[in-house]
């Protein structure tokens, strides 16, 4: 039967080498299991490979952020701060926070599209630290957030943004933003596993993201808002984060806002991390 497999067709696959296969099977001793960190980094590497093979997916961390900066700087600049150049000093850290927090929702979409495929089943049968698959996604996404941040800052500087905090303040601000986004993404991994279709993940994400990012101090100082809205805005995680990033980039030490941002981040991981893993194990 196997003799017939080599007789026809020249463009067919090379035959399987039973001998070298047998040798490989015998030689296969099992190495010790990878550490949690190593497994997570390997999944992060997978995310980066995906970016390499499908670079179009960087559209949302390049074109979208540029559009956001240009649009809001020129739309609101004259009315709110007298000129776009004035306004961008206030707006840029905020719009940076808003855009990156918005981009986090793609995590849920990629989790959701992946679970439809067989590869997810393979990952789930591996003897590895269970959350590493999810952490890998988020590590890959952290890279995307970094790209988005650099792109927006570059555009900002071109438009006249001059942060008083210098390079140190800017780097600290971006680092805080990425830590927060990493934590916040666990909300989306949960929805990615919970909802059935990519569309519903997008739908729910929009419902959460739009009010959360717009109802904040990203665009304007909340003091002119009605009291009930101020109550919401002043306690929103996005407001704390935007204040912290703005402060850091301006060279201040916004300790309270940093603590609040990190507190929110810890809360997101502690609540949505276990829920995500429960769904992941249950599927």
């Amino acid at each position, binding site marked *: 039967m196997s003799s017939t497999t080599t007789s026809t067709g020249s463009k067919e696959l090379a035959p*399987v080498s039973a001998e070298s296969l047998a040798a490989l099977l015998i030689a*296969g001793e099992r190495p010790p299991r990878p550490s949690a960190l190593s497994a997570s980094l390997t999944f992060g590497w997978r995310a980066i490979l995906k970016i390499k093979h499908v670079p179009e997916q960087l559209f949302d961390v390049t074109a979208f952020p540029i559009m956001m900066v240009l649009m809001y700087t020129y739309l609101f600049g004259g009315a709110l701060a007298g000129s776009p150049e004035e306004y961008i000093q206030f707006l840029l850290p905020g719009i940076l926070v808003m855009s990156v927090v918005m981009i986090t929702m793609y995590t849920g979409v990629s989790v959701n599209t992946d679970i439809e495929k067989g590869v997810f089943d393979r990952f*789930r049968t591996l003897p590895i630290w269970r959350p590493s698959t999810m952490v890998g996604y988020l590590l890959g996404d952290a890279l995307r957030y970094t790209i988005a941040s650099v792109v927006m800052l570059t555009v900002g500087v071109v438009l006249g943004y001059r942060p008083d905090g210098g390079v140190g303040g800017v780097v600290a601000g971006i680092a805080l933003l990425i830590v927060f986004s990493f934590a916040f993404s666990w909300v989306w991994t949960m929805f990615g596993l919970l909802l059935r279709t990519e569309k519903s993940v997008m739908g729910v994400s929009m419902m959460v993201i739009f009010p959360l990012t717009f109802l904040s101090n990203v665009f304007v100082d909340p003091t002119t808002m009605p009291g009930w809205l101020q109550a919401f805005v002043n306690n929103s995680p996005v407001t704390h984060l935007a204040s912290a990033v703005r402060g850091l980039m301006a060279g201040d030490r916004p300790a309270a806002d940093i603590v609040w941002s990190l507190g929110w981040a810890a809360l997101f991981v502690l609540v949505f991390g276990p829920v995500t893993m429960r769904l992941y194990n249950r599927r």
Partner: protein
Amino acid sequence: MSGQTSGLAIETAGLVKTFGETRAVDGIDLSVPTGTVYGVLGPNGAGKTTAVKMLATLLRPDSGRARVFGHDVVREADAVRGRVSLTGQYASVDEDLTGAENLILLGRLLGHGRKAARERGDQLLAAFGLSDAAGKQVRHYSGGMRRRIDIAASILNTPDLLFLDEPTTGLDPRSRNQVWDIVRAVVAQGTTVLLTTQYLDEADRLASRIAVIDRGKVIAEGTKGELKASVGAGSVHVRLRDAAQRPRAAEVLRLALGADVQLDPDPVALTAPVGAGAAGGRGAAEQAARALADLARDGITVDDFALGQPSLDEVFLALTGHDTKAEDTTGPYVGTKDEAAA
């Protein structure tokens, strides 16, 4: 540890999984000895994949118990994962990555160092005849290549138990033969294989024991010989030159074989079971030969004739009284054409 001493790779008792109203797996008891290929045969929607997923720790049973090498699949899932691997019905590799990247990724996740993972990946690609396609994204692979890279990924660390869920569904006959060769090589090294299939032919060639499942239940279990004896050796298919002779031919066959003759949709074709213990205990081939002789004696011209194994349809009919198509809503049934022609 009890599983190892008893020599069983898989042991299940009363395994049940329901999805809403459907009892996908409805009380399955299996005992799979180590070092063998165990075939799970059934039509689409019989519950094969659901059962495999529970054994591979992907799904939690609703009730019942399952042990793999003595480890409970729910309470000791991690120990089970350390010893099994799964090749699913759909390629369980990342389509966006290249073949080589997939193997390196899994090698790293299985604990190999960077260099070792790359080396082992290259060796496997070479052994599977995929070296030329190593740098291509898996999405551009043909069906046969996908199946190979998938199995290669499953044996990166030689597993003690390999689940192959319909490994040849959708493959052309050549690729199917090649997958069979791979399975034989893997088993020869001592790995236990649980193979699910819709093809009796496939189970027949690879498995030493077979469980037939239908509607989530095991309806027959045994060695190939036992199973076949319960069904009959197969069918004789006859094509006449003249459709007008068919009623007469049916009568001759009925008398010669002592069995009901089925008139095929093709007006010149007939099918009749042979070897079901009737016709004086003769072998199936002998029965068929005598029947042919009787046809010739009656002046009936036979243009073509084939003695086929029982098809899955026939096994099912014999075991359940309904055929595989009866409640199959998941897709077109493609099981038995080639077996009948064999």
